[in-house]
């Protein structure tokens, strides 16, 4: 199908973009467009105004600062894939990137767009929560920072209001003993996952501490499996897998039943747990 009519503005600066989305009802920000334009084409979304932020300067940096790695919202997936900084200091994101869409999608899609859109089956929102990141948000009243654990509120709903722009995410730069794990099931490489898991932890003798297990594709938002995290911290993979029965309640969707997703979540957990415990980071 073709999109319904809309007006279009190209933002010259962040302030200009904030002014544009504040000045009209029913606007959408256009970054990489790899989800938005598909929904426009299918007329699942019919905004009055599209504000294109692709040429807003200063939003495509990847830099280390104060123990964080900051990733500008307009950094494209392909740019992040090529970044030595990302491989060294955000290895979980580096592991997840090849699973996102296909090469042509990754050439356009942006890190900020994926985090802000918050598709429940997308990889990066789960990585963002697993890494205990922060979202840097610019709005009419200035800039604020929201922790990843507080960022996702519901299906396609986040701490962002229709007047806000996500300008960057910050992740704690990986320190030497940080371990990460990532796995997903999709019917075709690059498709949205039926279920996936992004995880981080720190080794503590023979056990783990600060375990974060974040599942995607199994709920309205990325979801932490807190009981499984506790079990895994004690080194008990089977207890962690059993704990998923209380942590997760995946609904049926067009791709798989909840029961299938629950089964897959257990398989993913066992795989990723080995990655975390053996330190194959």
């Amino acid at each position, binding site marked *: 199908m*073709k999109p319904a009519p*809309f007006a279009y503005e190209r933002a010259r600066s962040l302030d200009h973009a904030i002014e544009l989305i504040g000045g009209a009802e029913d606007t959408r920000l*256009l970054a990489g*467009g790899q989800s938005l*334009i*598909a929904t426009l*084409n299918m007329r699942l979304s019919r905004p009055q105004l599209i504000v294109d932020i692709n040429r807003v300067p200063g939003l495509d940096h990847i830099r280390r600062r104060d123990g964080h790695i900051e990733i500008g919202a307009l950094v494209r997936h392909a740019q992040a894939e090529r970044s030595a900084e990302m491989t060294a200091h955000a290895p979980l994101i580096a592991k997840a990137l090849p699973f996102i869409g296909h*090469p*042509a999608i990754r050439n356009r899609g942006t890190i900020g767009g994926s985090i802000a859109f918050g598709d429940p089956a997308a990889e990066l929102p789960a990585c963002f929560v697993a890494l205990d990141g922060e979202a840097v948000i610019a709005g009419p009243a200035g800039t604020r920072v929201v922790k990843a654990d507080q960022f996702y509120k519901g299906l396609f709903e986040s701490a962002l209001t229709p007047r806000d722009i996500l300008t960057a995410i910050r992740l704690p730069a990986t320190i030497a003993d940080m371990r990460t794990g990532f796995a997903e099931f999709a019917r075709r490489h690059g498709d949205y996952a039926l279920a996936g898991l992004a995880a981080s932890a720190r080794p503590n003798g023979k056990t783990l501490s600060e375990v974060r297990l974040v599942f995607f594709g199994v709920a309205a938002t990325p979801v932490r499996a807190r009981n499984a995290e506790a079990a895994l911290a004690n080194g008990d993979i089977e207890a962690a897998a059993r704990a998923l029965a209380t942590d997760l309640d995946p609904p049926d969707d067009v791709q798989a039943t909840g029961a299938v997703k629950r089964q897959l979540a257990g398989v993913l957990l066992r795989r990723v747990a080995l990655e975390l415990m053996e330190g194959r980071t």
Partner: protein
Amino acid sequence: MSERFHDIGLTVNGEEVRERVDARKTLVDFLREDLSLTGSHVGCEHGVCGACTVRVDNVVVRGCLMLAVQCDGTRVETIEGVSDLGEIADLQSAFETRNALQCGYCTPGMLLTAQELLARGDVPSRDAIRAHLSGNYCRCTGYHAIVDAIEAVAQSRAGGRR
């Protein structure tokens, strides 16, 4: 006041183009309908099939997931231009020799996507070729012949450099 219609200027296959476009027109529809460049095909219109693949500023993109109005000031290349320049003559020839196309609907997208992989200069594994093509559907060939053709070209280009 925000407008629906915008004047854009861009380069398409090396030629300067100036047109007035409706903001809602996708790049692939602009190329096909306004410029009569019908080598880029329209399949699913939501980024899944890869039939609309074109290059914008040297990278392969989905023509259905970019708006024409976004391409103001960019350099767009389609299968017509890439073909005329001879950049992928060996790849096209390998596709023909190995029966890597039947109906041809996916072929322009396959060629441009494959060329992006081959342009890296190494000889990719068959798995890497398949992963790179994962976003391009072919409903005729079963992909095997396509992978064969791309692998053969990668090997012959690597051989030519030695």
